[in-house]
């Protein structure tokens, strides 16, 4: 289904979005020709024939059967469209295990890119082909957007929150990234590129270019920094990272698990949950634990919270 629309899909997911697009276009096209056709046909056929006398017009005032049908049929059609739209969407949003992770932080008017091993870049993201990529998105000033037209996906980037987006780049190439959420004067210049490299080339790039040169390449991997911060911030007074239990829950294996909360809901331990647990621990209290964890909002800057979250993710 790739390439079904003139502008070329860059992944199989995108092909599915295109297929959905075509499906809606076909259904819509049918109703378009039906309704416009009747509209124009009636308008022409039943135009007044003599300039000064009306045609005989019947006193038709309605038809319960027709009303029933034209409520029923569109209802069925929209449910079908809804269903496929939802299916394709959920498949896009399902977390993919083992995805390459890239942190992207937006600020007026550029994208700061950070890889888990500490490499950084601006407005350019490099990933290997054939492997899922997970973008971990944040923003430091106002709302921004992260739109990959060739992949048919986008996600808002929100200050104070983490959002995520998955893609599966099948084909090497250089793809456009647009900011889609209005962010001020430079909004339309906030462009970046996603460069999908063949596996081998990517490995080489990581070895050389990616480590040297690069804008102020930071050597310490995020997770290592996170571990350092976690140890110095006193988290281990209340949390264990090995088998034991302290006042708070054990943090090993938390990432990706289902966490039961006070009040009965169950949430997934994703990046956003981990981040929130550190900066606003009272917002979601784990079932069976006291709500005593202090907030670290003021003491750990957002960048470092990200590093801690990265570290927690390594505790499998």
């Amino acid at each position: 289904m790739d390439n079904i629309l003139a502008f070329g899909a860059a992944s199989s997911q995108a092909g599915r979005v295109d297929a959905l697009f075509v499906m809606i276009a076909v259904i819509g096209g049918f109703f378009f020709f039906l309704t416009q056709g009747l509209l124009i046909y009636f308008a022409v056929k039943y135009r007044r024939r003599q300039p000064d006398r009306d045609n005989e017009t019947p006193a038709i005032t309605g038809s319960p059967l027709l009303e029933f049908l034209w409520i029923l049929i569109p209802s069925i059609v929209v449910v079908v469209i809804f269903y496929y739209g939802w299916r394709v969407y959920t498949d896009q949003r399902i977390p993919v295990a083992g995805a390459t992770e890239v942190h992207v932080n937006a600020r007026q008017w550029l994208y700061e890119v950070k890889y888990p091993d500490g490499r950084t870049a601006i407005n350019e993201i490099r990933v290997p082909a054939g492997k899922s990529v997970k973008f971990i998105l944040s923003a430091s000033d106002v709302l921004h957007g992260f739109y990959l037209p060739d992949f048919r996906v986008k996600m808002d980037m929100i200050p104070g929150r983490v959002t995520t987006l998955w893609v599966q780049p099948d084909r090497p190439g250089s793809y456009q990234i647009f900011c889609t959420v209005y962010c001020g004067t430079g909004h339309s210049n906030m462009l970046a590129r996603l460069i999908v490299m063949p596996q081998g080339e990517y490995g080489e790039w990581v070895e050389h270019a990616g480590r040297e040169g690069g804008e102020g390449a930071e050597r310490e991997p995020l997770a290592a920094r996170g571990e350092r911060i976690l140890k110095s911030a006193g988290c281990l007074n209340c949390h264990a990272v090995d088998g034991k239990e302290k006042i708070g829950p054990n943090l090993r294996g938390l990432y990706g698990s289902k966490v039961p909360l006070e009040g009965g809901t169950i949430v997934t331990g994703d990046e956003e949950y981990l981040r929130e647990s550190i900066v606003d621990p009272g917002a979601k209290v784990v079932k069976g634990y006291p709500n005593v964890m202090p907030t670290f909002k003021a003491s750990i800057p957002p960048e470092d919270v990200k590093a801690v979250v990265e570290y927690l993710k390594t505790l499998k």
Partner: protein
Amino acid sequence: MTGIGQPETEGNGRGYLAERGWRSWAFTLDHKRVGAMYLWTTIFFFLVGGVFALLLRLELLSPQAKYFGNHAYNVFFTLHGSMMIFLFIIPAIPSGLGNFFIPLQLGARDVAFPRLNIASYWVFAAGFLVVIGSLVAPMDTGWTFYTPYSAKSAAAVTTLSLGIFLLGMSSILTGLNFIVTIHKLRAPGMTWHRMPLFLWSMYATSIIQVIATPVVGVTFLLLAAERVFGVGFFDPSKGGDPVLFQHFFWFYSHPVVYVMILPAMGIVSEVIPVFSRKPIFGYKAIAYSSMAIALGGFLVWGHHMFTSGMSPLANAIFSLMTFFVAVPTAVKVFNWTATLYRGSITFEAPMLYALTFIFLFIVGGLTGPFLGALATNVQLHDTYFVVAHFHYTMMGGTVMGFFAGLHYWFPKMTGRMLNEKVARAAWALIFVGFNVTFFTMFIVGVRGMPRRYAEYLPKFQLENVISTAGSAVLALGILVMCWNLLQGLRKGAPASANPWRALSLEWRAASPPATENFDEVPVVTEWPYGYGTPKA
């Protein structure tokens, strides 16, 4: 024709227009004068907003922001959007034509609270003066005012939000007035099911205005508080949530799209039977679908936020609800089309605009499912596809409905006829110009061009040039139309009381109607759609 006598009351001179002097307008208690004042004001802002639109289109001729620069472009689309929405399309039909024709169609002498009515005009005027005042530091946030940008922007956001707060107050007052008027002042014999469909749609609209507008009022006050006192409702660094603003904003602004479209649908439901000489098809279906849209419209605001990090479950629910709200809208289109069947159709300007409404609204409506379905929404959201979609519904729909209403009721409002030839020429220019301008936006949107872009990639230039050319034709059409309306006002041929041979009550009053509308309160014995040849 069934025995509805039509006392073709001779136009008694200038009717409600007889009194002169500014006081007679400023302090008037006559719903017709209040309506006329709203019409003049809103049409003025439509033209100003249109000038901004043309400036946008001019800038988009080139991929670089050559003429005005990025910041000015951003200011232009903000002013264009805010004026079109808050100063034109929300008030134009309800407060303008609605004020004029609700009492007339009800067979009433005025609205229930005439003093409140003129007060709401002056609150509205205060609102637009404050909005104009905000131009000292023009806004560049888009008409959606999303935080945190709007909370940080150096522009006069606080002033503008207070202006919009006042405009909202005025909408609420007008809405309340209409609800009470429709409940209490129906002429003897006018049961709910004998009301013209325009009244049903105005009733549904008023309900939305009264329920939803307070929310946006409060939202804008919170935004002002955030800016002035540094309260952090929407500021993450103070424990607030920027997305909360979007929820508040769309909780109002989605229902409000029905405030924009329902009144136009009401006009179309009036015009189609008159010019087809057939009873409206499916009266009850049309009337109740207005109510269904008004209520269902409150449950779908999340469809503007599918990419804002809401949970997939919430997204799914909003998507499904959105699709269901589309059904009553489709029902209306089917019923109008069926009304044409076996009619005796003539194509005067009101009918041309009403048919154009249906034609363009079908395009707008059928592009909705692309945006309602989650996966395609994620692709198309915030691209030009959305810009095309809402112009097809708002301009192709509401504005065409408004033009239909202006041409249909012009003889009643002014006592004069329009030049039909010029009206048709203007219509043709508008029809062609509109489609060239906006259809190309669907294409460039699918190709990935984001909205609110002063500069764009060179690969999108062809579509943009075509669209700008179309907007010139469209603008010319609108100018010709305005010129024709002014000419008609000054020297149009005198109109009879009922030039279109319509059956609803406003046509029993003189053209233009006298101050208290009717010499004698009419008594209603049947519904207003008894057109056509009686059964043998």
